[in-house]
């Protein structure tokens, strides 16, 4: 099977994969340019670079280096070779709980920055594909039931924006142990403080509560649903890309 087709299948299965491509060779070995090797977690490497000895040497070499970012690796083998070490990047997934006025622009903006978004709400008038044309999936179901059936390892961001604080709290309890990098819940400072106090009394760890983004979003002075959505999605992005949230003008002066 073609290597790109295999990579596409791995991407669809969210399978972390290293991709190594030969980008420079000694002149007489130009035939090897563009050869690719893929290594998926826990599987045998697929593909051959130059020959078996070269491939083995390359695999041994990258096992000694910890991945930081896509980079060039150099190898001597009867001449100088340069290889590009890349990784399969799967589309990040977000779970948006609540399908109301803020949810709609949140989902749209998450879609624009490359997220596959799942939306959950129990109201058929809101949780439907017409309201969310760009969502990956829309689940019209009671929150508790929907969250029991969801694959909790899939999401890197969860945004709780239901129609009521009772539902917000129910959702928060259900997703508390999901391994997400971003977890945010809407609510005024007063409401949020009340919820945090309640959860603290119930024995929820301080560490978890400090991780929770509530009130949700960055301080952009947002007023309308779309403006609030922008401040939420900006916070999601800053968390995943490790941004400072400061104006670029004020950084590095």
């Amino acid at each position, binding site marked *: 099977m073609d290597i790109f087709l295999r*990579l596409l299948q791995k*991407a669809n299965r969210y399978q972390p994969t290293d991709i190594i491509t030969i*980008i420079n060779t000694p002149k007489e070995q130009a035939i090897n*340019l563009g050869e690719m090797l893929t290594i998926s977690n826990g599987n045998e490497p697929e593909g051959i670079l130059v020959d078996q000895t070269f491939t083995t040497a390359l695999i041994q070499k990258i096992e000694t280096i910890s991945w930081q970012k896509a980079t060039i690796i150099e190898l001597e083998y009867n001449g100088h070779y340069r290889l590009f070490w890349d990784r399969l*990047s*799967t589309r990040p997934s977000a779970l948006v709980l609540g399908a109301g006025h803020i949810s709609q622009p949140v989902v749209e903006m998450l879609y624009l920055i490359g997220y596959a978004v799942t939306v959950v709400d129990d109201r058929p008038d809101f949780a439907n594909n017409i309201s969310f044309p760009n969502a990956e999936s829309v689940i019209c179901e009671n929150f508790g039931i929907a969250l029991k059936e969801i694959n909790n390892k899939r999401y890197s961001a969860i945004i709780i924006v239901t129609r009521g604080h009772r539902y917000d709290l129910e959702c928060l309890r259900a997703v508390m142990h999901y391994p997400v990098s971003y977890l945010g819940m809407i609510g005024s400072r007063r409401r949020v403080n009340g919820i945090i106090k309640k959860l603290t009394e119930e024995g929820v760890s301080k560490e978890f509560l400090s991780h929770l983004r509530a009130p949700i979003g960055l301080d952009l002075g947002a007023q309308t649903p779309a403006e609030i959505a922008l401040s939420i999605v900006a916070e999601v992005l800053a968390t995943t890309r490790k941004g400072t949230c400061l104006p670029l003008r004020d950084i590095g002066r």
Partner: protein
Amino acid sequence: MDEIILKTICDIKGEKSKAVLVTIVDTHGSTPRKAGTKMLVYPDGRIVGTIGGGCTESEARLQALRALDENISFTYVLSLLDDNAADEGMVCGGTMEIFLQVI
């Protein structure tokens, strides 16, 4: 490498057509996109994805068409130094190395 570019490549191969996968493999100084960023160039010059736009992208596109014509994959260094600034003896941008891969 993401699923959108992979899907496009698989579609091209399914049609028994050709294209050039352009990947930024190294950058120095200030560049719009970082190593790993990819775009595809079709034989008619159409582009899917972006490595930052502007005149360096169009230079990359020309090199991609050369790769297709000669049916060879190669690396190429693009300079993002502003011409006027360079004339003044100032350097305000960086450089990036791309790999042009005929697929």
